[in-house]
């Protein structure tokens, strides 16, 4: 632990005031005109050579979106967003699609190197397949052959629409319908890319699947759409990590992730979100409005969300589980760190429908500077959820006297045999712990990183190895400048 903390502090120092991933790759983008109308929706659909049903679905979503207003119930101050003042399609220019990594634009590869995603190295050493999404188009996918051997489909969703239309059509929008909420509806109309994963019956996916999302071209909103289907008795672990370059103008991100778990299937979805949070005066930063939801359709199915949210100026995100199946399990492990003027309103919904369904929610919110950090969660036991069980624990840590930490849990039980337990605490870093560290010559910033890492341990433990290390460092980096 102390070694990691020392590394963290070293990293903090080396960073100075600069955001680590604040660089811009100079690649010519192919862009649709600014603004949003039916023509843009048609343009996106046409350029992706989509079937008629998908265009129709997009248009229905777009028409519905025009009747909606932005949600205002979250504890967030969201500046007016001009949806007409953004590009809805931008793709890195490529003459032909790359057949292997060698054909990929070297500048693009260099960007990934800076981000710490050495594709080739990963291919050889780490055993992680990366479906790297650059702006809106997936440019490289590795380990396809190995996955195909096992019958696992892992590809950009636009490719899946072409190759496996019946699968996409069967599941797309079944967990998050296009009418769901303002941002999900917008996404349904204009989503450009994302990942599609299909794990067939009885298959345990042989490797961790990972995707890195990047926002690159200025003023390009990213509208990713990810769909993961795990058939009976299958297992898949999916990793999502995010960084974005430094920009002064706000950038909008409205992603949708849908998970479907059938009988005895298990999906583990892990996220490290480290988009540009804006500078220390609250200028710039990403607006992150994400709809993530999993449906435990099958008996004994399990969906587990783990997230480390350190970036973005505004985070609006509630990864949820619809527990339809008997004995199904939903989990939500979350660390949300806000510093400076960052705002986060994040949490989960656990909706229990199946008998004996179980859910566990562990949320750790850390607020520093002038930031606002809110947990918002719903646990609902429907009449059918006999003997269902929920345990929720939300802990908030405040660093400094100008930040806010809030908890908004909603607990609704309509079943006598269901048991719901909720606990929440708010506290600051214990003076005694801090003193103990300083007594041992650990300086204050390092001590805070150490203590905060301890505070988050329950969640960090849930992350796959390669993420856990990165996340631990992030925890320290995100709190830079919050003490002293």
């Amino acid at each position, binding site marked *: 632990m102390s070694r990691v903390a020392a590394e963290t502090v070293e990293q903090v120092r080396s960073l100075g005031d600069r955001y680590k991933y604040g660089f811009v790759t100079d690649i010519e983008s192919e862009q649709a005109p600014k603004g949003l109308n039916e023509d843009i929706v048609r343009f996106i659909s046409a350029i992706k050579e989509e079937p008629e049903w998908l265009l129709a679905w997009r248009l229905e979503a777009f028409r519905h979106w025009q009747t909606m207003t932005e949600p205002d119930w979250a504890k967030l101050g969201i500046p007016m967003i001009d949806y007409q003042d953004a590009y809805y399609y931008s793709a890195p220019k490529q003459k032909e699609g790359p057949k292997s990594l060698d054909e990929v634009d070297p500048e693009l590869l260099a960007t990934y190197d800076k981000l710490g995603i050495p594709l080739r190295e990963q291919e050889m050493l780490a055993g992680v397949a990366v479906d790297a999404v650059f702006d809106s188009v997936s440019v490289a996918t590795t380990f396809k052959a190995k996955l195909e051997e096992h019958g696992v489909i892992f590809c950009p969703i636009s490719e899946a629409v072409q190759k496996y239309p019946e699968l996409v059509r069967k599941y797309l929008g079944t967990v998050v319908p296009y009418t769901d909420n303002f941002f999900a509806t917008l996404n349904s109309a204009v989503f450009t890319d994302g990942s599609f994963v299909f794990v067939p019956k009885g298959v345990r996916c042989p490797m961790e699947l990972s995707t890195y999302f990047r926002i690159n071209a200025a003023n390009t909103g990213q509208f990713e759409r990810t769909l993961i289907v795990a058939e009976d008795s299958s297992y898949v672990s999916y990793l999502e990590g995010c960084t974005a370059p430094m920009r002064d103008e706000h950038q909008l991100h409205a992603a949708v992730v849908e998970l479907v778990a059938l009988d005895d299937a298990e999906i583990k979805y892990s996220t490290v979100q480290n988009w540009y949070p804006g500078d220390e005066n609250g200028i710039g930063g990403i607006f992150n409005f994400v709809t993530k939801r999993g449906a435990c359709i099958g008996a004994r199915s399990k969906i587990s969300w783990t997230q480390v949210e350190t970036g973005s100026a505004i985070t609006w995100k509630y990864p949820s589980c619809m527990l339809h199946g008997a004995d199904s399990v939903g989990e939500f492990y979350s660390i949300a760190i806000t510093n400076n003027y960052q705002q986060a309103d994040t949490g989960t919904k656990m909706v229990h429908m199946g008998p004996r369904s179980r859910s566990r929610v562990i949320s750790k919110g850390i607020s520093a500077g002038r930031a606002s950090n809110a947990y918002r969660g719903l646990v609902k036991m429907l*009449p059918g959820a006999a003997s269902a069980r929920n345990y929720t624990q939300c802990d908030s840590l*405040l660093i400094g006297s*100008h930040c806010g930490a809030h908890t908004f849990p*909603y607990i609704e*039980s309509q079943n*006598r045999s269901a048991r719901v337990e909720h*606990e*929440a605490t*708010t*506290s600051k870093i214990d003076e005694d712990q801090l003193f103990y560290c300083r007594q041992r010559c650990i300086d204050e910033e390092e001590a805070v990183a150490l203590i905060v890492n301890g505070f988050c341990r329950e969640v960090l433990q849930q992350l796959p190895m390669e993420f856990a290390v990165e996340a631990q460092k992030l925890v320290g980096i995100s709190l830079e400048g919050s003490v002293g």
Partner: protein
Amino acid sequence: MTTRVESSGVESWREAFESIRAALPGERDVAFEAFAARGFPTNRVEAWKYTSLRPLARQRFRPAEPDRDAVVPFLNAGPRIVLVNGFLREDLTTVPVGRWAGPDNRAGVEDEALVALNAAMAGDGYVLTIAEIRDEPIEIVHATVPSPTGPVAQSRNRIVIASGGTARVIERHIALGKGAYFVNGVTEVEVQAGGQLHHTKLQEEGADAHHLWFMPVQLDRDAVLESAVFTFGARLSRNQIEADIFGEGATLALNGAYAIAGRQLADHTSRIEHRAPGATSRQVYKGAIGGQARGVFQGHIIVAEGAQKTDGQQLNRALLLSGRAEIDAKPVLEIYADDVQCSHGATAGDIDGDALFYLRSRGIPANSARGLLVRAFLSEILDETPEDALRRAVEDRIDAFLEVGA
């Protein structure tokens, strides 16, 4: 957020307001317009998410009139204040009290539609000021006489504990007869520096009653308020407490126990705002819910910037005793200061199977065992209550509940 205005409901209320407007002391139009602009809250309003007043808006109520003959039963032989239909019965009141004389724009409580309605239409109310140490509990009875016209009783009351004062107050809400009626009352509480108020509310309204009661609280330096509410009656009830802690070192304890069955809805909503450092707040609410009844708990703790060393704890527990009972809980923490200890906990579920088995294995029949456990569950709140007569009254209500609800 949109506030739906049930215009038809508002219009019938305007009629009712006009009919008594001339007889009311003070300026009322502003308050009524504040109500009319909002209308009855529906569950589209966040603070009323789980308790919709739409059915209430559709009903017609007539302002209740003073009843000088009704016989009112008492708990104790001690000092008392008696209101019937929202009007003070001086002949039965044995404590010197002042009378409410119309809106005085205290604290912006008229933000709530129902409080605005009360400010517009309340015809009477007591003002109790205590500056000395009083050991003997003061019994305050709010009685309503139901009638086919659907009377609405609205009183506006005020308890002030001056510096150095200490008092015990028991507020009872009862029906004198059977039938529908609507109670929309306010008791303002102010505890000045070093004062202490021990307040108990026993809500035993009639089965067809609607009971909405709002209690704004202000606590000054080192003030103490302990308030417990026992909710048994009314078809729909909401006990709403909004406490502002202005003084350093103040102590606030809000407790509640409720037992509801049939189609009852009992809503306990509290907002505690710590505006001064070093204050303590404690809340424990426990409910037993049978039949198709619904319990609602909304607890909100706010710690303002600068309110360091705040200690705020909150607990909500609900027992669901039937297959169609429901609990909705929303315990909110809103914290703007770092050196604080705040927590909340909430649980919902059936009686513990192991405890039940333990009792049954010792030859106690299932029904008695359940009763024993429910009584034990609720009596934690009762344990804080020193008055014997009150204890007996609450225990009787729990027994009655166990016969029908559990």
